[in-house]
């Protein structure tokens, strides 16, 4: 019996190739999206899960609202990890990590290699994060002060195939380290990725200086809530002396003034998708993308499912006879339902097979856009297949259920007599489904436009500086840093080098924060400080609003000079800022060094657009580490070659490396751009599937009305009148769909936009445009079919029955 179902299913497919293609291809595309989304989610949620006891690992952070400055960052102070280890009974171990925010030149004998990502870590690091050791072991590796642990790849770069253990590497021409361990890269993703680990045995006993990341691993039987309460109690005590020392007020006064400060604990496994704080180690993923992609996958599957339902019920007239014959031959309703479900499940499985091929084809492009490294054939292939099978089966049963119940309910007598009245209910349902389908498509179209408008808005937003002609070059050695001002003229000899400067960091980097106090006011204020050299504002084209820039003739190195940005002036709440004196906190003793505010510059962006502009203070400084050159637009390559040649003469030990400033800053936008691109592709897919379904439905309608068309033509209807008749109904449906789509999209878009500190005003245009686009797509699809029917010879049409 089952064989018969399958046989008939295949023959029916073969006989109705257009419908079968629409069904199968539509579903295949839908499943492809679903499988890709599944793989993506699996990948995104796999972060940190490979660490032993990852559920017990937490990252600490601080949340503060001090003097009007909000800070929410996963950073902590130097002594915290040690306090965890020694004072808490619930703690198994804890470790401290300080990232090295710059690639470092490492040397072994004559072999020099830049290592991208380094970290200074406590000796307990590998007890928290169980890297697999190829050489050495987690207990001993970082015990000595000059110990370094390399990843397999870093070791290979430095030592080739030689066993690196016990070998000496030189760090940036400063210090020698002994390799005490070589580890494999972690088995899965983590929110950090380091290429080398330097033992850090230096401690600073200040609780208000938060320049580290601390990870704490609790014991298995520990209670998180009790631990957290204990931590708060303990640490808030520890910070009190520092508050008094630096802020000159007691802790009670501090909170009484409306300030807030608290320690946080963040589960390690939540970092990648849920953590969007200041000073993240690297840009994390975002749970919203997961939600959006799930939404799209559901919409696409829904659209494909609707195609299936619509085409099957539309064609039911054609199959009615078969149903009648089968019933007369003794088929029960149950048997028929089984048969039709079998058919839809078979189609679904053909689609599934295709979908896996498509997934394999699309994955490289997907990885490229989303900057992932997902493969189909991975550890959880079994789960992927199982998931896909389940979706397919559910889809097959769901999409097939309506036609199955609908068709099997036919009364044999009426269908065999051929007077099957075209069921009104079926037509109504088809209309409703087309409306749902076009609502979904329109939501995607409007969403896509809004996403692109927002992204292009961010792109074209006045970021306050110009980076397209600026290259940034890290200085690597102390002599170079100390003497750089004297070298500037060497570069400026080339007339295409327009300006040379330096800064402690640039837009696109993580900024620094320090404490400052206005003269005459007691309290210190956190400001984001940047140390720069002369010509900084000229090189980055930052506009001066008031006062003057740093000028070499007017400054001495012993007194600080300050330039504020607009936001800092606003936050400090001072009028006539230029000329006021500001104190800078200088060292462990909490003393202040006073200097003049000499100018105010326009706000410029350092961080991504999900962060507001920080109150910034710029100081002039002789020893800063990142040089930048503004070069003329013409002959850029030749100019860079020139800079490189001269640079290498000055600093032969470190090969010349540069990045364009706009690319550096642009990286902050990339995640959103990637998301937009992916959304675009998925939307196009959804629209194609919708259009295919509409085409099928239109061709069915035309087929059904062949006789009517023939008669109308005999009576004198023109081609355009016939086309008009055939397309009118569909256009109405698309318009109704838009009525639903507009408010839904409005709410969704508003929600998405609220993620940005800078958002576009909700525009009307995308809505109108999407409606027009949906109409055009519907018109083209339907007209194509309608034109064929309208142009056929009336004789053929009349002979049809």
């Amino acid at each position: 019996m089952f064989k018969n179902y399958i046989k008939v299913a295949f023959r029916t497919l073969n006989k109705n190739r257009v419908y079968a293609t629409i069904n199968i291809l539509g579903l295949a595309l839908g499943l492809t999206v679903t499988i890709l989304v599944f793989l993506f989610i699996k990948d995104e949620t796999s972060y940190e899960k490979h660490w032993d006891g990852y559920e017990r690992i937490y990252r600490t952070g601080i949340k503060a609202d001090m003097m009007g400055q909000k800070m929410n960052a996963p950073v902590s102070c130097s002594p915290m990890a040690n306090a965890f280890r020694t004072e808490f009974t619930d703690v198994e171990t804890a470790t401290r990590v300080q990232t090295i925010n710059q690639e470092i030149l490492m040397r072994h004998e004559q072999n020099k290699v830049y290592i991208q990502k380094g970290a200074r870590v406590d000796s307990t690091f590998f007890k928290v994060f169980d890297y697999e050791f190829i050489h050495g072991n987690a207990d001993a590796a970082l015990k000595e002060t000059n110990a370094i642990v390399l990843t397999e790849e870093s070791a290979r770069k430095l030592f080739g195939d030689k066993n690196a253990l016990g070998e000496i590497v030189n760090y940036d021409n400063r210090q020698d380290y002994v390799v005490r361990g070589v580890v494999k890269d972690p088995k899965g993703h983590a929110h950090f990725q380091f290429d080398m680990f330097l033992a850090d045995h230096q401690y600073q006993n200040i609780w208000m200086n938060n320049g580290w990341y601390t990870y704490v691993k609790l014991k298995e039987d520990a209670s998180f809530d009790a631990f957290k309460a204990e931590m708060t109690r303990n640490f808030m005590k520890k910070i009190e002396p520092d508050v008094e020392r630096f802020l000159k007020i007691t802790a009670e006064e501090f909170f009484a003034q409306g300030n807030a400060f608290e320690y946080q604990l963040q589960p390690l496994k939540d970092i990648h998708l849920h953590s969007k704080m200041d000073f993240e180690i690297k840009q994390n993923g975002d749970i919203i993308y997961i939600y959006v992609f799930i939404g799209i996958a559901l919409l696409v599957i829904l659209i494909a499912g609707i195609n299936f339902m619509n085409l099957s019920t539309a064609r039911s007239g054609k199959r009615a006879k078969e149903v009648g014959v089968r019933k007369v031959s003794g088929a029960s309703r149950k048997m028929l339902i089984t048969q039709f479900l079998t058919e839809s499940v078979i189609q679904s499985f053909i689609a599934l097979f295709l979908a896996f091929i498509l997934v394999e084809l699309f994955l490289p492009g997907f990885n490229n856009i989303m900057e992932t490294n997902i493969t189909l054939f991975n550890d959880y292939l079994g789960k992927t297949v199982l998931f896909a099978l389940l979706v397919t089966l559910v889809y097959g049963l769901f999409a097939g259920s309506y036609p199955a119940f609908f068709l099997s309910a036919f009364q044999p007598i009426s269908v065999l007599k051929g007077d099957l009245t075209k069921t009104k209910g079926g037509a109504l349902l088809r209309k409703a489904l087309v409306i749902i389908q076009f609502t979904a498509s329109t939501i995607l179209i409007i969403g896509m436009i809004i996403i692109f408008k927002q992204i292009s808005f961010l792109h074209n937003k006045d970021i306050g500086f110009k980076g397209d002609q600026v290259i940034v070059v890290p200085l690597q050695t102390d002599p170079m840093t100390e003497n750089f001002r004297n070298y500037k003229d060497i570069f400026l000899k080339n007339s295409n080098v327009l300006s040379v400067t330096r800064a402690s960091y640039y837009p696109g980097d993580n900024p620094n924060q320090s404490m400052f106090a206005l003269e005459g006011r007691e309290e210190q204020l956190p400001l984001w400080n940047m140390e720069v050299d002369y010509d900084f504002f000229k090189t980055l084209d930052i506009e001066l609003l008031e006062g003057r820039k740093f000028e070499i003739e007017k400054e001495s190195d012993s007194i600080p000079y300050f330039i504020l940005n607009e936001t800092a002036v606003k936050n400090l709440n001072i009028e006539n800022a230029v000329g006021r004196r500001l104190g800078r906190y200088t060292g462990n003793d909490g003393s202040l060094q006073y200097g003049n505010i000499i100018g105010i510059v326009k706000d410029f962006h350092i961080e991504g657009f999900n962060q507001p502009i920080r109150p910034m203070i710029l100081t002039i400084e002789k020893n800063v580490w990142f040089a930048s050159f503004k070069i003329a637009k013409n002959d850029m390559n030749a100019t860079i070659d020139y800079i490189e040649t001269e640079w290498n003469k000055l600093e032969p030990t470190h090969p010349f490396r540069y990045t364009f400033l706009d690319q550096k800053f642009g990286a902050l936008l990339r995640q959103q751009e990637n998301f937009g691109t992916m959304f675009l592709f998925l939307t196009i897919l959804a629209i194609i599937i919708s259009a295919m379904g509409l085409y099928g439905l239109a061709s069915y309608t035309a087929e059904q009305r062949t006789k009517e068309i023939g008669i109308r033509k005999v009576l004198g209807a023109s081609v355009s009148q016939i086309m008009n008749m055939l397309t009118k109904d569909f256009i109405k449906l698309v318009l109704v769909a838009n009525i639903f789509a507009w408010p839904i999209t409005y709410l969704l878009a508003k929600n998405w936009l609220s993620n940005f500190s800078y958002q576009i005003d909700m525009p009307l245009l995308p809505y109108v445009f999407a409606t027009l686009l949906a109409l055009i797509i519907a018109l083209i699809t339907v007209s194509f079919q309608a034109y064929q029917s309208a142009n056929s010879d009336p004789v053929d049409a009349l002979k049809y029955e």
Partner: protein
Amino acid sequence: MIKLNKLTKVYRTDEIESTALNEVSFEINQGEFVSIMGPSGCGKSTLLNILGMLDKPENGSYKFLGNEVGHLNEKGRSDVRKKNIGFIFQNFNLIDELTVFENVELPLLYNKVPASERKQRVNELIEKIGIGHRANHFPQQLSGGQQQRVAVARALITKPPLILADEPTGNLDSSHGNEVMELMCELHEAGTTIVMVTHSSHDASYSGRIINLLDGQIVSEKRNKLSSAAV
């Protein structure tokens, strides 16, 4: 075998009520070959559909093999139907996606006959009615007469005691029509009860009894002397 007593069927649309069968009563015995004749719209197809349990009567009683079946639900009717009745239609009603063999096999499938037996029975039967060489053809590849033979074979395959034929020759030319009628006669001679609706008095002359319907009522009944009188 069949006993109708004051059977009535009324069709209703929103405004109009039309009586298709009006208190029809008759009996058909096992082994009879009965023709039902009458002009278009007289109710003969309705009658056949009710006899075949494809449709429900409005009033009156329908006893099939001694059991009242007139008011069974669809499932009950379907059960009686598939064991006892074979249908032959004017327009053949073969499934286009199935081959000759598979079309004939279909009722056996629904009666859950094992595969080997199905194969044997179908092959025997299509051989017997002269379409064995067409077993793997699809209906569209056959002539009208051949298609109707397939339909007859399908009706016979379960060896039903009753065959209902709705104008079996209506779509056939006379020579193909005669082939089909001769097939019916052979069946009848083998003991099958046949009820046939027809327009053609030529076809009716093959049967043993002719019931004439007009406006939903039996107007006359006539017995043929020879059950296979015609040429």
